[in-house]
């Protein structure tokens, strides 16, 4: 037998053997899944990665469980090679309680922090912005971890990839954008969806290196990936890798890829690294046929045992439904379950008069000083403005790089916040106006909100998103004046706070920052720049889910939040002159919602009006009014009613805007009518 060494093989024989061992394990998993699906033994959505085994099998030789990975729904090969246990992986794919994520994520949503598999997304391209956050955390902690985010060639068309690459370039993050170019995006192949000649050359546009590597040549792929990983680990910034491969299977299901010509598929099967590596190991004399067979048999035995264990595991029961939506199950709104949460402990700090924007800055200052993991990112958050509304004034001077001005890229901002939060940091992401939620809603609603649940609480996202709300000031126009809180409260997994005054803003924001779940702190412009009040010094917290009676009354409960609370108080003053006694409830938090105190108030007054600046139709008030009516039907003098903005975009013309959003006058008028009607 010839002496085999790195010189004539192009790779150390031992390494090549280990790569084959991983490929064999991946192949055994893939075959077992496809066999079970085609026999009808089990049924779940599966996106085969047949043909792409060499990529993670090779990377596994160059990384450890300390390195972070993100991948996609077509990522079972990535999970196997990363070290996710096959028992938990199969049980997860089958939706069983012994699944790595309790069967709540399934095959497209694996999270296994113990192996470094941090998040798996079924939204094309969405992993890249989150990878930046993982890489940022490692970099800011002085760790030498590398983050690798896998995605298909199809993902190169979506904006999230662009935003993520741009941010990674400017922040020089230790992240590898690993495009597994399998030549086809779902059912549409190159060049039908792009005129680009390749993807690697795009990296130059972001100011960093891109390399195209043939991933069917394992020795060559190993050599080039070794150099890439070493360079990124050394802190030289991100690299984009286009790993050329081929998807031998269909987009979803089992069998062959029928979206390419038969001769193209046949050629790809010839070039399949799995078979070629096996042949190379045998022909070069590195492994005997018996040794190769033994590796395959061991992989098969491991898969058989895992599948048997998974099949025996109990199907995750419906009693799990509300577990892991939040850290505390009592946060979940449930009909008939209205827990009373304790109100805040009255702070003892010396009070100082300030505007709400100053209270927000002070809360952040306290959080920064208290916890090294707190950082702030967003557009223009640094000096000299300290955020366009001054909410961060002085923070960059005091805390330097922990205040991170970003490109104008909301998806990149929220993604980076999610990634850093996944590994225990406490990011504050500032989105200038809630109107921009639309451009980053996927990151908020599909990732931040769902990650605790989809991972079966293997991970969670202690991220705070601060968003400004316009409206009622005049002059901002239809795209900077909306009240979109109902979009956010409709997504299980998010908490939403909306202070009406500086004291609450400080205490609620501090609670949000140190909360284990993703919190959205909505700051109304009318509040930030329009309300002044006493704010105690030092750290104090207003518990989430505790409403406050702002004014006591006996005839009707006015239930509101944000700057509309002041409008309700002004209306109550007017109504008092006419002998109508209105109680004003400030919700302070929309999720968790304090139904206990709301119902207690309405039980007393027997009338209720919900007021908000958002459009009335399908607004948050519909939820409140409906529950009040259901719970207190026999007590009420009339149905709980609503007053929100008229159903139109906010107009630029001042007279229209002031008329369409509720104000003290229109609130008082609605109350008078209700008092007449419901005696």
């Amino acid at each position, binding site marked *: 037998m010839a002496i085999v060494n790195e010189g004539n093989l192009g790779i150390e024989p031992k390494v090549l053997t280990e790569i084959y061992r991983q490929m064999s394990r991946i192949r055994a998993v893939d075959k077992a899944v496809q066999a079970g699906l*085609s026999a009808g033994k089990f049924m779940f959505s599966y996106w085969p990665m047949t043909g792409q085994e060499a990529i993670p099998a090779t990377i596994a030789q160059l990384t450890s469980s300390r390195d972070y990975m993100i991948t996609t729904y077509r990522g079972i090969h990535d999970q196997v090679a990363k070290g996710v246990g096959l028992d938990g992986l199969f049980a997860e794919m089958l939706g069983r309680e012994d699944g790595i994520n309790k069967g709540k994520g399934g095959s497209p949503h694996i999270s296994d922090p113990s192996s470094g598999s941090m998040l798996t997304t079924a939204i094309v391209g969405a992993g890249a912005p989150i990878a930046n956050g993982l890489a940022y955390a490692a970099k800011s902690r002085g760790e030498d971890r590398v983050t690798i985010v896998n995605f298909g060639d199809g993902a190169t068309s979506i904006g999230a990839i662009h935003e993520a690459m741009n941010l990674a370039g400017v922040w020089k993050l230790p992240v590898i954008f690993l495009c597994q170019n399998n030549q086809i995006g779902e059912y549409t192949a190159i060049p039908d969806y792009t005129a680009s000649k390749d993807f690697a050359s795009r990296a130059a546009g972001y100011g960093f290196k891109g390399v195209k590597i043939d991933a069917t040549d394992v020795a060559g792929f190993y050599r080039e990936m070794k150099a890439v990983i070493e360079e990124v680990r050394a802190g030289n910034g991100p690299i984009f890798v286009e790993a050329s491969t081929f998807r031998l299977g269909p987009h979803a299901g089992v069998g062959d890829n029928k979206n390419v010509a038969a001769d193209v598929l046949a050629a790809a099967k010839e070039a399949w690294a799995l078979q070629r590596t096996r042949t190379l190991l045998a022909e070069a004399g590195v492994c005997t046929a018996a040794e190769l067979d033994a590796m395959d048999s061991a992989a098969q035995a491991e898969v058989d045992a895992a599948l048997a264990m998974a099949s025996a595991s109990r199907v995750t029961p419906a009693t799990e439904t509300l577990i892991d939506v939040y850290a505390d199950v009592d946060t979940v709104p449930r009909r008939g379950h209205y827990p009373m949460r304790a109100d805040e402990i009255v702070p003892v700090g010396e009070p100082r008069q300030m505007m709400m924007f100053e209270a927000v800055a002070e809360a952040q200052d306290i959080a920064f000083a208290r916890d090294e993991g707190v950082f702030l990112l967003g557009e223009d958050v640094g000096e000299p403005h300290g955020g366009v509304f001054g909410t961060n004034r002085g923070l960059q001077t005091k805390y330097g790089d922990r205040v991170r001005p970003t490109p104008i890229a909301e998806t990149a901002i929220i993604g980076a916040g999610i990634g850093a939060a996944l590994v225990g940091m406490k990011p504050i992401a500032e989105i200038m106006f809630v109107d921009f939620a639309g451009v980053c809603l996927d990151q908020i609603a599909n990732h931040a909100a769902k990650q605790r649940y989809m991972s079966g609480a293997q991970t969670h996202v202690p991220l705070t998103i601060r968003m400004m709300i316009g409206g009622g000031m005049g002059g901002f126009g239809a795209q900077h004046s909306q009240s979109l809180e109902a979009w956010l409260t409709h997504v299980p997994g998010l908490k939403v706070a909306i202070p009406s005054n500086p004291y609450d803003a400080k205490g609620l924001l501090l609670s949000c920052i140190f909360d284990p779940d993703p919190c959205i702190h909505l700051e109304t412009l009318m509040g930030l720049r329009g309300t002044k009040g006493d704010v105690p010094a030092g750290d104090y917290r207003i518990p989430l889910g505790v409403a406050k009676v702002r004014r006591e009354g006996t005839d009707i409960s006015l239930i509101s939040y944000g700057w509309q609370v002041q409008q309700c108080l002004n209306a109550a003053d007017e109504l008092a002159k006419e002998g109508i006694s209105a109680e004003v409830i400030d919700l302070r938090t929309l999720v968790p919602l304090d139904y206990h105190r709301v119902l207690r108030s309405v039980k007393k007054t027997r009338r209720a009006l919900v007021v908000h600046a958002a459009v009335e139709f399908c607004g948050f008030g519909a939820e409140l009014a409906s529950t009040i009516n259901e719970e207190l039907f026999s007590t009420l003098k009339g149905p709980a009613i609503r007053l929100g903005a008229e159903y139109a975009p906010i107009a630029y013309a001042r007279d229209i805007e002031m008329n369409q959003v509720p104000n003290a006058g229109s609130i008082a008028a609605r109350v008078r009518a209700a008092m007449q009607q419901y005696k």
Partner: protein
Amino acid sequence: MAMTLTIPKLEMSMVEGTLAEWVAADSSTVSEGQVIYILETDKTARDIEAPMAGTLIHKAAAGETYEVGFEIGEIV
């Protein structure tokens, strides 16, 4: 170890499939990966391969449409 063959759910939208043709004969010996029957859905026709080696037993007639999960055969 025998394996029951049922009409698989290969697309999210799939509720039934047509067993268009038995490619491998009843009681024949099949090897793993060998095409044993053709399944037609509203979208496409697919070759279904034997998930394991053994003797194929037909339990349902070709040319008929069956619900997902319906038992059509077995490999023993």
